[in-house]
């Protein structure tokens, strides 16, 4: 019996003192549920245990205004019997609550029509190891975050600017097991620093995300945002139209992140992917290659999917040609392919998605892109991106926090923000230069590994007032 664990390791910062479940306890919860389920009508049982201990310090107007910590453990149970399956989730770990979750799952499933396509749960799997648990990140304290924030705010005050942002750090761990002997576990640390520097009427922004808090420097990010905010104070208004753009990695990420469902086999089977009737064709420029690779050193995430299947590295775009999709077990069976380990926890209607896209990138730099541009726009980040046309993949959104005019190879002034309406397919045909791919972080997509891009004929349709 694993409920109310008594001997927990202390893995958080000194002040947070998050007492995480030990690997033995994680496994113990799963074994308890599987044991309890044996005395029910469940033929198969799957258990997920997810634990999060996250802290986030938020600042605005040059001071901390919110500062939070959370610790959550959830146990999610899926039973299957007679071609029927359903899921029940709880965050209560006592035996009665775990038993209740099993019973709810069975009760839900009992009402279903039989699904002849429901697959038996997978058996034991082998996983490639990844280590993304960094002790330095786990040891970050509220005082550490407050000191870094204070330095950034002091810089803002010194420059006559106003700082706002976050500094977060945390730990998460997950385990999945089932009654056919599958068991997988994963833990990682995460940290983020994001800062907006405001110098009326302008603002600029910088952000970093890593499993290792030592891989970014809050003060350097603050300095970068501060310099760009100052550059952005005096803006000119340009006419909407098609421009050559230099998209910094965060801007690229927040656009191409909208592709991730399109590479799901289920989305293609459902005919809602932009890749319908386009697989194997020269859709993008020959300089665009994309893999999904959870093992890439700049990626994060568990090396297994929602059913516990090992994630595979998948080449999704090869020199502009969509080559492969990612598959859950169900969509793989429907397409007579092998599962790639990208399925979501069952039951669900979306199937799967690549969560760790990595662009091949190039050898240029943002500076070289600027130097090579006769007239264009340098874009810091994009905002409120939404899909206008799902098949042509036309996205709309705004530029934000630093849009600059490039003339004759140098940045000459700041520009009022534009709205864009741009097909991503067309955009990836028009990429002229790329930097090496980096771990990018924005606000519209989860983190991926993408380059900065110089893109011709990017379509800005309207201008706003600032």
């Amino acid at each position: 019996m694993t409920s109310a664990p008594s001997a927990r390791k202390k893995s958080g910062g000194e002040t947070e003192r998050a007492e995480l479940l030990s690997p033995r306890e994680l496994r113990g919860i799963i074994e308890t549920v599987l044991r309890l389920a044996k005395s029910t009508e469940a033929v198969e049982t799957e258990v997920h245990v997810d634990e999060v201990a996250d802290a986030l310090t938020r600042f605005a107007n040059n001071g901390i205004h919110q500062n939070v910590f959370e610790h959550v453990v959830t146990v999610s149970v899926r039973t299957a019997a007679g071609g029927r399956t359903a899921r029940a989730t709880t965050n209560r770990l006592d035996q009665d609550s775990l038993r209740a979750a099993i019973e709810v799952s069975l009760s839900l499933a009992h009402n279903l029509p039989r699904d002849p396509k429901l697959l038996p749960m997978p058996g034991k799997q082998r996983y490639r190891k990844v280590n993304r648990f960094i002790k330095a990140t786990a040891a970050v304290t509220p005082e550490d975050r407050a000191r870094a924030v204070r330095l950034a705010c002091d810089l803002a005050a010194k420059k006559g600017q106003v700082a706002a942002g976050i500094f977060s750090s945390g730990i998460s761990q997950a385990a999945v097991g089932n009654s056919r002997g599958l068991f997988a576990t994963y833990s990682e640390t995460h940290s983020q620093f994001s800062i907006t520097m405001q110098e009326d009427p302008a603002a600029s922004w910088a952000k970093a995300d890593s499993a290792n808090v030592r891989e970014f420097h809050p003060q350097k990010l603050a300095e970068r945002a501060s310099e760009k905010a100052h550059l952005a104070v005096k803006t000119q208004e340009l006419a909407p139209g098609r421009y050559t753009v230099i998209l910094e990695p965060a801007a690229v990420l927040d656009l191409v992140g909208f592709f991730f469902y399109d590479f799901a086999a289920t989305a293609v089977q459902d005919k809602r992917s932009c890749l319908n009737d386009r697989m194997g064709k020269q859709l993008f420029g020959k300089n665009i290659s994309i893999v999904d690779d959870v093992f890439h050193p700049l990626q994060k995430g568990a090396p297994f999917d929602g059913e516990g299947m090992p994630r595979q590295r998948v080449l999704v775009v090869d020199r502009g040609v969509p080559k492969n999709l990612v598959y859950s077990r169900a969509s793989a069976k429907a397409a007579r392919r092998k599962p790639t380990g990208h399925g979501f926890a069952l039951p669900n209607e979306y199937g799967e998605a690549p969560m760790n896209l990595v662009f091949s990138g190039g050898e240029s730099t943002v500076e070289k892109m600027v130097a090579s541009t006769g007239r264009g726009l340098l874009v810091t980040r994009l905002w409120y991106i939404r899909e206008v046309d799902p098949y042509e993949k036309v996205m709309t959104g705004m530029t934000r926090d630093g849009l600059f005019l490039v003339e004759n190879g140098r940045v000459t002034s700041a520009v009022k923000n534009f709205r864009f309406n741009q097909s991503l397919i067309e955009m990836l045909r028009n990429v002229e230069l790329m930097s090496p791919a980096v771990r990018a972080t924005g606000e519209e997509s989860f983190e991926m590994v993408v380059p900065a891009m110089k893109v011709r004929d990017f379509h800005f349709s309207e201008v706003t007032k600032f």
Partner: protein
Amino acid sequence: MWDFCTNALDTAKLRGASYGDVRAMHLRQRDLTTKNGQVGTLAQSESIGIGVRVLANGAWGFASTDRLTREGVAACAAQAVSIAKASALAKRSNVVMAPEKAYVDSWQSPFRKDPLEIPLETQLALLLAADAEMCKVKGITLTETNMQFRKIDSWFASSIGSRIHQRKVISGCGIGATSFQGGEIQKRSYPNSFGGQHALEGYELVESLELMKHAPVIAGEAAALHAAAQCPEKFGTLILAGNQLGLQIHESIGHPIELDRVLGQEANFAGTSFLTLDQLNKLKYASSIVNVVADARLDHGQGLGTFAYDDEGVPAQCTDIIKDGKFRGYLSNRETAHLVGLDRSSGTMRTESWNRLPIIRMTNVSLLPGTWDYDDLIADTPDGILMDTNRSWSIDDRRYQFQFSTEIGWEIKGGKKARMLKNPSYSGITTEFWNSCDAICKFDDWTLWGTPNCGKGQPMQTMGTGHGAAPARFRNVRIGTAFSK
């Protein structure tokens, strides 16, 4: 739960907190979906825990835990105080809170049929039947339906003596049909996109929607859209259906009036607002027929922004936002109220769950009904475009410039609904748009729409908001921008 709350407040005080409030919450949820005649998601979840917010050394700290033991709760409260003391290392000034009375109360949202007591078999049968109706329509390549039910119990206690228990029952339901044909994807949803209609109601909401009646209609429209004319690019007269107008209100009125945005507290993420403090009681936000309120009271309706008390223990209120076209009010909390000269919070602090800090949120931000009969509005429009059901939405980070597209449009010619238009869109600047409003329909066509997916805050919180709207007409609007070349 009250013992845990008291335990947390006592510990926080002992550790040096000058103020504390606690939210213990128990959330239960059921999700059902179907796709192409098969059940997709079938899941039920519960989450229970406690969140403690304290002021110490003049700064905020918040900690949450699901370890509901005396020791676990005390550790959580102590941690909140430690975090507050760390906050004080980089505070700008001491937090000052507007006064509020202590309340001891219990409240339950009204419902006729508990959705979690309705047999699952009944719920699935309805969804599968609606799904099947849509599947029958030629050209439909994807059918989807969904129901979502939530029951939320919250116990709020504060160091000023409040003890408030609230129980909310929330239901949501919607259907959608998609057609892929000739290199084009078209979709129609009912009664709204992105999950349908959501309200603070029981299963009676689902029964009122008449899914079986509407399923073949929207499926037929989705298939027919391929052959419809493209929405033209022009400046012209626009009539918005209530479901689209609800989102327009949300984005271009609801968000800009959040005082935390106005004061720069969301500058890094959600953005700021063009409604700077000097605009209050001066800005002509809209035409004189436009009246907007933020109303969390049950009298306004059973919306996603309806409650008896907010998550800071302040009673539900109705605040004038736009009165006869003039900008009259913000959404405030106890910390920000005094900054706009108010002696009391407007009661808009809301939290997604026990593990999230309450932040300023929309309640029911609604456009009050006007004077027009819908048929008269159409008859009075010689040349215009009617747009229905949102497809995409986007607005800049100060809430000036927006662009929306909808699933379907209709030409209005000579006072009559004429041909169908595909890919409709419109754009504009917030105040210019609202000042161009010249007709709003009556209460007969007014619906309190639910927006269940409003994201804000770091860490991100998803909140449901309500938006009452009836069809309305706007003049000289830029139309068709989203598909401009």
